[in-house]
């Protein structure tokens, strides 16, 4: 075989003849179940919907749980904590909107995005946390963890309802991103509500819901695919 043959073989018009009966069978199967479908919304619209959803749940959470944590923070700390949480939520919303349509431009593979966001948030919490021994560590953790898991579950389920039409080609990625998004909302509410900035509490009670729901999202998607 010569080099010219290689180029010839790879030309769009060479080979690949489809048997007419096969083409007819495929087309008739598609025609037999032909219904009008509503296409997915564009990425900006989906991102706006996810952002509104996040904002609405965060506002409801603030009304329900209070804002003691926010009141105890200085402005640099508020900017650092809520700026990074907002950036994480926006990145996740954008990645999710892109992941929902096959062939879309991806921000990064879902697992890489999840790892980056989890490590980034852990770094941010470590940067503004205080380091001292706590007397009632587990009592404080229990309360915050249940708040974070509860609000994360509500956010994750709600978001799954919004994103489910796009969880078709790569449900595991959509599951991880949805779970992570719910977890980030849970963590945001805890940062707003809780004024315990000790490192142990921040990591075990505030950061953990994000990690837990990333895993739950992936697992749920993997199970639903079987």
């Amino acid at each position, binding site marked *: *075989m*010569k*080099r010219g*043959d*290689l180029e010839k*073989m*790879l*030309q*769009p*018009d*060479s*080979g*690949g*003849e*489809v*048997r*007419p009966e*096969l*083409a*007819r*069978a*495929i*087309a008739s*199967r*598609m*025609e037999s*179940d*032909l*219904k*009008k*479908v*509503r*296409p*997915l*919304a*564009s990425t900006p619209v989906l991102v706006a919907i996810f952002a509104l959803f996040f904002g609405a749940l965060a506002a409801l959470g603030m009304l329900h749980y209070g804002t003691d944590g926010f009141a105890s923070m200085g402005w640099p700390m508020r900017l650092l904590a809520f700026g990074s949480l907002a950036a994480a939520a926006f990145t996740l919303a954008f990645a999710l909107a892109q992941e*929902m*349509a*096959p*062939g*879309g*431009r*991806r921000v990064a*593979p879902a697992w890489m995005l999840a790892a980056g966001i989890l490590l980034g948030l852990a770094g941010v919490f470590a940067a503004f946390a205080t380091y001292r021994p706590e007397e009632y560590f587990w009592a404080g953790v229990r309360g915050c963890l249940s708040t974070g898991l509860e609000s994360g579950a509500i956010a994750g389920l709600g978001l799954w309802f919004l994103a489910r*039409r*796009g969880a*078709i*080609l*790569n449900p595991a990625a959509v599951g991880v991103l949805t779970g992570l998004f719910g977890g980030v909302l849970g963590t945001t509410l805890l940062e707003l509500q809780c004024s315990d900035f000790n490192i142990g509490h921040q990591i075990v009670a505030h950061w953990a819901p994000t990690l837990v729901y990333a895993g739950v999202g992936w697992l749920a998607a993997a199970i639903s695919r079987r």
Partner: protein
Amino acid sequence: MPSARKSDDLRNRAAGSSELSGMEAAAEPPSDTPEHWMRRYQDADAEAPSVLVAMLSPALLRFFRYNAASREQAEDLLQETWLRVHRMRHSYRSGERLLPWVYAIAHHVRIDSYRRKRRLAEREMAFDPLPDAGAPDASVEALEFQSMLAVLPDAQREVVTMLKATGMTVDEVARATCSTVGAVKLKAHRAYERLRELLTEGSR
């Protein structure tokens, strides 16, 4: 119009449409593009499925054949791809290019088939392979070419066939394979290097 001529015509239209820019596609797509027919398909136009199948199937079949499948396997994968296209047709956003969307689905079909085969292979006993009965129409060059491509790693072979056999751009291939433009360029470069080496060895 005879069916062969009609099919050639549609294929040419599909190849030509890949040269359209994203902006052109974002406006009203011309009536001879796959994007236009995909919109009609979403609107339940009865003519759209057969036109889309005629436009896109030859390149899809070639893509599956070059990725180490016999003709029968390639036809199975082609049918599976169209089944998924039908199920997922709502996820195509009008204004976007169609080829990356279709090939992203084809890419997943191929991966799923590979996983299925691997699972089966783990449970089955190995016998001497039977001759491939599904390739009586293939020329000697085609078979030689397929055996050359078979030397390439899966990911490189997939990129080369998408770039060359379907006429997609590097960016579109990156979208279809859930990868980056840089990674696609690197894979293509390595694949061409390897193919050149094989050709040089073969011509000695």
